[in-house]
């Protein structure tokens, strides 16, 4: 099930989404009507299935048609994968920041690091390493950069 927490930051309505998005997700009910400026924080989304993708696109396309400015922030790996798989997943919105997956070379722990998409564009696939929070070892980006960051080139 999806959980939505809504906050207001000036003129921007911020929606913090967490959980799984599926055929049981009714965006109209959990998000309410669209607002002129919406920030969708996707940090807590673990999974989204095909019916969830359909519901997502249907809802955000309606927002797009009504002139809403959409901004997706802190996109989890599950959301980044969909952005890359479905060309119109963001429905005309901008992707402000995403989580990159990392893996510790010593203890194999999975980590994630938040990056602004503007900064990633400047890095040109030269991604930094992180310090493992568990063993202080070196953690490197654990995906195929050309796949995971494909949407940056679109």
């Amino acid at each position, binding site marked *: 099930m999806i959980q939505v927490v809504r906050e207001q930051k000036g003129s921007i309505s911020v929606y913090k989404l967490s959980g799984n998005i*599926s055929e049981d997700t009714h965006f109209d009910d959990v998000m309410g009507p669209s607002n002129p400026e919406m920030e969708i924080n996707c940090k807590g989304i673990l999974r989204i299935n095909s019916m969830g993708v359909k519901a997502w696109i249907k809802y955000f396309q309606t927002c797009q048609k009504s002139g809403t400015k959409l901004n997706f922030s802190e996109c989890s790996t599950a959301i980044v994968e969909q952005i890359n798989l*479905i060309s119109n997943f963001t429905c005309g919105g901008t992707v402000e920041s995403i989580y990159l997956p990392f893996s510790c070379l010593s203890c194999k722990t999975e980590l994630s690091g938040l990056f602004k998409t503007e900064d990633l564009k400047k890095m040109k696939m030269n991604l930094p390493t992180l310090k493992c929070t568990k063993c202080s070892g070196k953690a490197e980006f654990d995906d195929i950069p050309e796949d995971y960051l494909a949407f940056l080139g679109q």
Partner: protein
Amino acid sequence: MSGNKGNESLKKSLILLSERPEDKVFAEQVCKSTGLHLKTTAETEEAVQALSQDAHPVIFVDGSTEKLYTNFEESVGKTLGIFSEKVQPNAIHFLTDDEVSQAPFLAQSQILGNFVTRDPEDSIASGRHYGRIVKAATKGTPFDLSEVFQKDAKTQAIEIESVTHKQKTLEAVKAYLLAANWTPRTANRITSSVDELLMNAFYDAPLAAGLTSDATYPSLNLNEISKRANVTLRLAFDGVYFGVSVTDFYGSLDKGRLMKHIAKEFSKSEYKVKASSFNAGIGLSIVHQTGGSLLFMSQTNVKTEAMLFFKKTDKFKDFKRQFRFVSTQFYF
């Protein structure tokens, strides 16, 4: 045509039509697993001739390019006829360097049974794994996940009586993977793929069987559907490969539609929401693109078992690059 000598001629054969050394290594491993007798040739006519003479042979064909494929298809058409009994798609395996979406000439082929994307880094290990699939398929009768893994792994089967139990089932699959030390991201990825298979079994299979329509969704309350609504989930793990399957009891899978769905890439074309249909139409495409191998075993009007295979890797990027295939086994 080169092949092993001695009593090998009495065995069922695996004909390899390819000039590529890695295909020979791959096929040799498959033969070790299956007991098939390997016959290698680079000549299309010779391979097709062998196909016509041998009893129930398996054939591996280099399908790297459209030209290679067309040569084979034309030769089969001329010598045997595309719809000849000798041409059994279940036993025809095309070896390629690409994904299904990059090879439409194969995805749309009438004679496609099995689509194998080569693993240039380890033809031996991939051949050993694929050998299990070929072994199960060469029996010539429907099989399930436990027969693919045989004694290599313990298989668990779970009966799911209603789609309302789907979420709990998915969490159980994820917990199983985490307990077996799969990384959280990989466990989520696999769980998502299982979700798609379960939705296909609960929603798409009765639709394809003509037992319901988009208008009746999601209330699956027709008598016939309630009799056949149970879905079986099987899990198997041998320490290296995890297999999971979902079985519905409609047997309504259509190969042409299946391959069309798998081969579609929505990163290049826009996804259009169809309000008139209940399903999304993108599930199998997502499953295929997000990793793992697929095998569909379908017995018409009886059952369809959709199987997924994933190799356990330390790193996610290796998980994504793993050896893959899309296999279809249809029994009428």
